[in-house]
């Protein structure tokens, strides 16, 4: 396997250990996928794109962000292709490549979440919701639930910061996702 002949499938096989090349397009993954009804591309379509080495399409397709990682597809795949891992890998590559099509709100959520982890060591949900809404822009959604959340003591205003916060920064940098 020399560098020039690296295909999307072989890259994913190497990084995530998921063998898209073994997919025979039976569609069992899509038949059980809870999000299939709401996405344009289904797991088996994504597998197809990977098999055909259609990198740009695979990485820029919003569907990869609709995956719940519920693993139903991987659990039932007759060939052990592990579509969930493949989609994980696609998301990772898509972020790394800075693909613009990534749905704003989803990217925003993950960014917000990890930012919390990096700076506090834990996720402070109130802060998370706030930050997420700022990044995604839909300020009113779920605002209705915030009040009852307080009343039930489910949201605290004070963020907890762990002692070993420098460890967190170290981990993020070591994983090349610092800042």
């Amino acid at each position, binding site marked *: 396997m020399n560098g020039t002949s690296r295909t999307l499938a072989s890259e994913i096989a190497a990084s995530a250990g998921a063998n898209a090349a073994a997919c025979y397009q039976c569609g069992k993954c899509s038949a059980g996928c*809870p999000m299939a009804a*709401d996405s344009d591309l289904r797991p088996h379509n994504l597998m197809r794109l990977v098999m055909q080495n259609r990198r740009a399409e695979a990485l820029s397709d919003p569907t990869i962000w609709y995956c719940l990682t519920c693993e139903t597809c991987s659990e039932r795949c007759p060939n052990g292709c592990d579509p969930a891992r493949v989609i994980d890998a696609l998301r990772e590559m898509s972020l790394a490549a800075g693909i613009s099509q990534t*749905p704003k709100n989803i990217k925003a959520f993950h960014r917000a979440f990890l930012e919390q982890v990096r700076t506090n060591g834990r*996720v402070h949900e109130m802060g998370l919701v706030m930050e997420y809404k700022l990044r995604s822009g839909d300020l009113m959604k779920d605002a209705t639930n915030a009040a009852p959340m307080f009343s039930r003591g489910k949201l605290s205003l004070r963020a907890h910061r762990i002692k070993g916060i420098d460890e967190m920064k*170290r981990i993020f940098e070591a994983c090349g996702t610092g800042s």
Partner: protein
Amino acid sequence: MNAQYTATPREGIAYYPGCSLHGTSREFDESLRAIAPVLGLRIKEIDDWSCCGASSGHMTDHLLGVALPARNLALAEAEGFDRVVAPCAACYNRLAISQHEIAADPGLAERMPDILGRPFRNSVEVVNANQLLRDAADAIKEKTAATGKPNPLVGVKLAAYYGCLLVRPAAVAAGEDSENPSSIDDVIRACGAEAVDWNMKVECCGASLSFSRTASVVRLGRAIVSDARAHGAEAIVVACPLCHSNLDLRQKAMTARGQEPLPVIFITQLVGLALGLPAGQLGLDRHFVPTAPLLARLSERALAREADEARKKAEAAAKAAARAEKVAAAPRGGEPE
């Protein structure tokens, strides 16, 4: 590095609450802390634990998704524990997968101490609340009987909902049949309640997109709640904060008008009820779908059952007495002359 690594083995189980159990799902934390001593489970919260990264971690960067949980495994290890319980299904899933992947990849294992900046042997076993409580099933039965109070859960129909994170991938399913798991059902039975046989046990509720794809999430949740109702369940038992907040918070949107919403309770709260602990201590008042009506119904039935049994006893006693009297009253045969 190994020099400074001197953890003396420690009794009990390390406890990794994770962010939600300190926030939106604190009742899960409260109820676990409430039942643990009763069942003789010695759990100790890991000092200075940090977030496992949840789905955002591994969706964004595979290595990060492994490293964030690993830090907490390392902490538990350093405290000298060989087991850590992660009640939150999402945390459990991430911790277990991280543990699994590092064990499977020597190269990764080698890099870990450097990435974490602390020694790490990956020696800690990860368990979830279901496993913990299923193993404690006998203790649950015993302590429930020991309360002396009538068990409100006897005969109540409950739907055990596992969702995705606790049973998939098979590698971390911890002996569960991914298509047909049984741990929560076992705990339900141990509590004296009845586990209904339904179809949505392992279908995903969509929680990980709870904020971003609300429409899909409501669609998925509706399917689950209505199937549970269709099979006669009076409540849904969960072991996952995401499932819980999703099914609890959004159930209004998931149920038709006029329909009574189904309470969604944590497996630990269920056990707490069996053990006769007060609802407040179990955080049952924190839910969006009120649990009070159900609890009221249950205690009514319990009282009714008790009264019924008392009546039966009384009747039996009366019968016995009557028989005794008859014998006494019977005319004695005359002595032969």
